[in-house]
């Protein structure tokens, strides 16, 4: 879209008068950051409030997961392969960054298949890939596992913490804790799963939703459509990101996910146990399932008593409302994951709008 047109649309959004207060949840953490980065958050009409959703995979991963990874690395002398995002996330008693400085072998990767190269180069060691993400990253993690299977790379395994986003949104709506008028639905996730898994938002809860991309124009047009839909009581789910999202999703990617993973109930930070919201490695691939391959019993998980990441991920508060925000919790010394993940709402507020 040409920049002059985007500017005009942005002006239109800025001057859009609303007949009442409107509350929109942006489900995805990348949207949270992009609303700030593009400046769209700054031009929203006064009566429109953005609420952060549960769509930051690192943030919703409970401490127990990292506690187990650290135990596995210690007990089995395993190499941990991880995206950089996970490094500074606090676990119950430590973090990968702290363990790395104490000598734990932690490798930062940019693509899951790099973990296979590490495994090939370290045949006498076990390599555990941290797999934390939503529907967007699950296909590449599944492909990595399939490649390890095909090539017989037996010293590789996956610590599966993958989750599914629609059940989390369902849990938020079902709890009725937060007033939400409509949803900006993640474009990346929808590129994989398509439009229909989101139809419950309209059908079951009578709210509108717009699938949106991540550029300035996507955010501006997404919010403009959603305002119209809310005011017109047009409670449907609209695909506003047709460039990348087919209504039917990416069938091949979904097949790959289905071939490697089963669906299971899983625990989310702040949201508790949500039925059918997580992925588990199928039995036939249990050789590559780090959780099964390396039994550990880490100490009982604990949370910082003041940390309100859980409330934040349910949309109950905004980051500056947490008493620890910029007072005891900052990216250098994070208390909760929302302050260190690049998709974390606290990280976005801290970076882009800390006055």
């Amino acid at each position: 879209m040409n920049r002059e047109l985007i500017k005009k649309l942005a002006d239109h959004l800025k001057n859009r008068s609303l007949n009442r207060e409107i509350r929109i949840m942006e489900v995805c953490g990348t949207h949270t950051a992009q609303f700030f980065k593009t400046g769209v958050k700054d031009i929203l009409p006064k009566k429109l409030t953005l609420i952060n959703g549960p769509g930051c995979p690192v943030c919703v991963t409970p401490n127990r997961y990292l506690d187990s990874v650290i135990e596995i690395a210690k007990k089995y002398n395993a190499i941990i392969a991880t995206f950089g995002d996970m490094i500074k996330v606090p676990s119950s008693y430590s973090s990968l960054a702290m363990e790395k400085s104490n000598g734990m072998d932690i490798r930062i990767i940019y693509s899951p298949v790099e973990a296979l190269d590490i495994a090939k180069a370290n045949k006498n060691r076990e390599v555990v890939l941290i797999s934390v993400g939503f529907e967007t990253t699950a296909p590449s993690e599944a492909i990595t596992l399939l490649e390890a299977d095909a090539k017989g790379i037996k010293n590789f395994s996956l610590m599966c913490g993958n989750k599914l986003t629609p059940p989390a949104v369902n849990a938020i709506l079902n709890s009725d804790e937060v007033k939400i008028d409509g949803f900006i639905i993640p474009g990346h996730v929808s590129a994989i799963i398509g439009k229909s898994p989101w139809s419950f938002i309209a059908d079951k809860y009578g709210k509108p939703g717009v699938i949106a991309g991540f550029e300035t124009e996507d955010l501006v047009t997404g919010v403009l459509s959603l305002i119209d839909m809310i005011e017109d009581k047009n409670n449907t789910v609209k695909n506003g990101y047709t460039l990348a999202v087919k209504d039917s999703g990416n069938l091949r990617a979904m097949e790959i996910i289905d071939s490697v993973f089963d669906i299971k109930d899983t625990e989310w930070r702040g949201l508790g146990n949500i039925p059918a919201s997580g992925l588990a490695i199928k039995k036939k691939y249990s050789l590559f399932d780090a959780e099964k391959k390396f039994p550990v019993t880490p100490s009982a998980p604990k949370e910082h008593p003041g940390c309100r990441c859980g409330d934040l991920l349910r949309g109950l508060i905004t980051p500056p409302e947490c008493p620890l925000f910029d007072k005891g919790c900052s990216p250098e010394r994070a208390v909760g994951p929302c302050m260190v993940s690049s998709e974390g709402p606290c990280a976005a507020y801290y970076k882009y709008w800390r006055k």
Partner: protein
Amino acid sequence: MKKILAGHGSGGKLMNDMISSIIKKKLGDDTIQIDDSAILNLPNSRIAFTTDSYTVTPIFFPGGDIGKLAVNGTVNDLAVMGATPLFLSCSLILEEGFDFESFEKILNSMKIEADIAKIKIVTGDTKVVPKGKGDKIYINTAGIGVFNNAPLRKDIKEGDKIIVSGTVGDHGITIMSLRNDLKFSSNLKSDCASLNDMIGTISTKYQSSIKFIRDATRGGIASVLNEICDNKKFSASIDEDAVPVQNEVKGICDLLGLDPLYIANEGKIIIVADEKDANHIVEELKKHHLGINAAVIGTIDNAYPGKVYLNTFIGGKRFLPLLIEEQLPRIC
């Protein structure tokens, strides 16, 4: 292939031979003084003195190498103060096993760059560390420059304009795209260059209007602007659309979640200047081959004292705070 041995740093004949037959010969047979110190005649009593160490990896990259960088970097630190660079020292920390061919190539580019910048390499040192205790070659240079005019440092006030001398992020993204762990190729080149000549052309003409100049190396232009505003009563307002960024840099940054405003440059300066001459300075910069993409990118105001903020192209604002840590280590 001939390689650096532990003995090349021992202080014995091996080292002396290397210094006289290679290092001195390459870096300046007529300028290097083999003694405990070089004796220098300074034309002026007010001097600028600076030092920097270079550890970039890889040591060769499109647009330059660690040797060129070691001259540029120190020359630029002198030039941005308004000093004319005169003398340079060169300390080499070599890893045992480093090949002579690469070593000589690096010395050659140091000499070429020193000649371009009209700075003389006058003294130095060489150490060799055991294999595995270094990474091929580290270079420290210290530089001395003299002031013919007053240093380019004045009080910045509201209304002053912020200028950048060209496209941002070229060096950092070039280095990043070469690192083994990022498997993509690009046609980018590092912008590393000695800027004293270009700075000289604007500083003589606009001495009274220039308040501040700094080369935007590690941390990019956002970090320089934060240094300028830190603890001050003014803020820096930057216009997103005004900042020159090459499309390729933009693309790679988008892909990796990086912000070009925070990416290292090795041949770009930020200038704060009085509003009345800002456009003239840009015109003057554009006449120089290292400043053809120069632009006014923002204004000093009092909206958010002590902070730097960006006006995105749709007119929204967001802060550009100092990053907690460098986005990429060992960039220079």
